[in-house]
């Protein structure tokens, strides 16, 4: 008998982050309602949804970036490798070394390219010697797919790079502390299509080592780079599933309306 080509099944990865009944409030506003989600290791998970749906807010709960906002309150639990990141014993700074973040607008420090990368490893004491640090910087810039473009001017200011290069520098900076999870909040929205393509290619490579969570307004980008997609609407997680299923046959009519570009 011939084997059915359908018999190959998708690879199942370990759960990296598990969110259970997460609620986020900004003052009286209930921004995230009862969100349960399982984010897998070595997988790109995309959060999509209209503006104000809570996808960025939820992303920021994953490395406690919301702690910096006074009126913000988080309930429920978020487990990173089974441990609640909102536990009192967890140091947010250590957590953010494990769960790195890349923002919408490239925001290199006003320092040299080298120091941009070396900053994190220095404060976390990851390098014992100058040679160690050089190693980390080179490795990170290579991972950020920008090494060849900057290797001859490591001591030039990071802010002198082009937008796309700056964003890859920020990704390199985020991976320099050896994170386990990489959060990206619209990493390409300020980039041109070529730089976007390079960053997307990079995201796909990063997937081999990290769990990547990306918030994006571009549905095509979510379709291109992610394996799992979560659709948020009005603070609810409406649908979560395989990216291919979400984009070909979504189960919820709200998802369908949104991704097909209908008024929803």
């Amino acid at each position, binding site marked *: 008998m011939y084997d059915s080509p359908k018999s190959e099944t998708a690879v199942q990865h370990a759960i990296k982050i598990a969110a259970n009944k997460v609620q986020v409030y900004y003052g009286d506003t209930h921004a995230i309602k009862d969100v349960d989600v399982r984010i897998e290791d070595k997988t790109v998970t995309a959060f999509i949804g209209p503006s104000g749906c809570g996808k960025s807010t939820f992303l920021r709960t994953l490395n406690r970036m919301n702690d910096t906002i006074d009126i913000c309150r988080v309930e429920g639990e978020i487990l990173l490798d089974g441990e609640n990141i909102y536990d009192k014993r967890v140091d947010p700074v250590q957590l953010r070394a494990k769960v790195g973040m890349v923002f919408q607008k490239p925001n290199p420090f006003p320092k040299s390219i080298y120091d941009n990368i070396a900053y994190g490893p220095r404060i976390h004491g990851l390098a014992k010697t100058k040679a160690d640090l050089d190693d980390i910087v080179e490795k990170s810039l290579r991972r950020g797919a920008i090494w060849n473009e900057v290797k001859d001017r490591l001591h030039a200011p990071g802010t002198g790079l082009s937008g796309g290069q700056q964003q890859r520098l920020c990704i390199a900076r985020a991976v320099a502390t050896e994170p386990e999870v990489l959060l990206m909040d619209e990493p390409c929205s300020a980039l041109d299509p070529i730089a976007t393509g390079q960053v997307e290619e990079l995201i796909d490579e990063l997937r081999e080592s990290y769990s990547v969570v990306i918030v994006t307004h571009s549905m*095509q980008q979510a*379709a291109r780079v992610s394996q799992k997609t979560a659709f948020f609407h009005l603070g609810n997680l409406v649908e979560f599933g395989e990216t291919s299923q979400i984009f070909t*046959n979504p189960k919820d009519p709200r998802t*369908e309306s949104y991704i*097909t*570009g*209908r*008024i929803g």
Partner: protein
Amino acid sequence: MTEQKQHIASAFDRDLEAIQAKIMKMGGLVEAAILDASQSLEARDEELAEKVRKGDAAIDELEEMINEDAARLIALRAPTASDLRVVLSVMKIAANLERIGDYAKNMAKRTGVLVQMSPIPGSHSSLRRMAREVERQLQDALDAYIRRDVALAEDVIQRDLEIDQMYNALFREFLTHMMEDPRNITACMHLHFIAKNNERMGDHATSIAEQVVYLVTGETPDEQRPKQDKTSTDLGVAPEGSYVENSKDA
């Protein structure tokens, strides 16, 4: 399926409607070709047969237009979910319709040969019934498509069995005629191909109905539908003209 909301880009809605309108137009031409081909055979009407042969070019042209429209829609609009399924199903249905058109044209070609021979008694009415049934199947499949009616599509898929059975009966009938009198062989070979064409057209109508199920549900129906075309495994007819029962079910 509940009534879809409109796209934010209204031109997208118009594109989708236009491409589906072309499918319906193509469907109308193909239905007429089936009926005309069958009518020309029965009435031994060479002129009508010629009309069917010439008419196929318009069907082919429509298929080409639909494929171009679909390619443009994919490139410019990047359709997703049900929009994507509309575009994919439209391309497949256009291909099915084009093949049905070819079979109708082939029937009309054979009619040109058959009118020069003495008729085989009884064959015409059976072939006409078969063509009617095929045309009805196609009509229902296209209705199901435009109404997004899965129940009707499922019905079409199930009814293909009847066309297969008609083909089986004709296959045996022609075989009998050929054995009785070798002078019938040429005509019966042509008639058999016409019957086979009808059977194939039925399969394409079924395939259109399957596209309807895919379009609405996002899933292709199971292949486990009843099949009754046993002629490809049939041993033939016993010397007395009695049938050899096929023990193996399809």
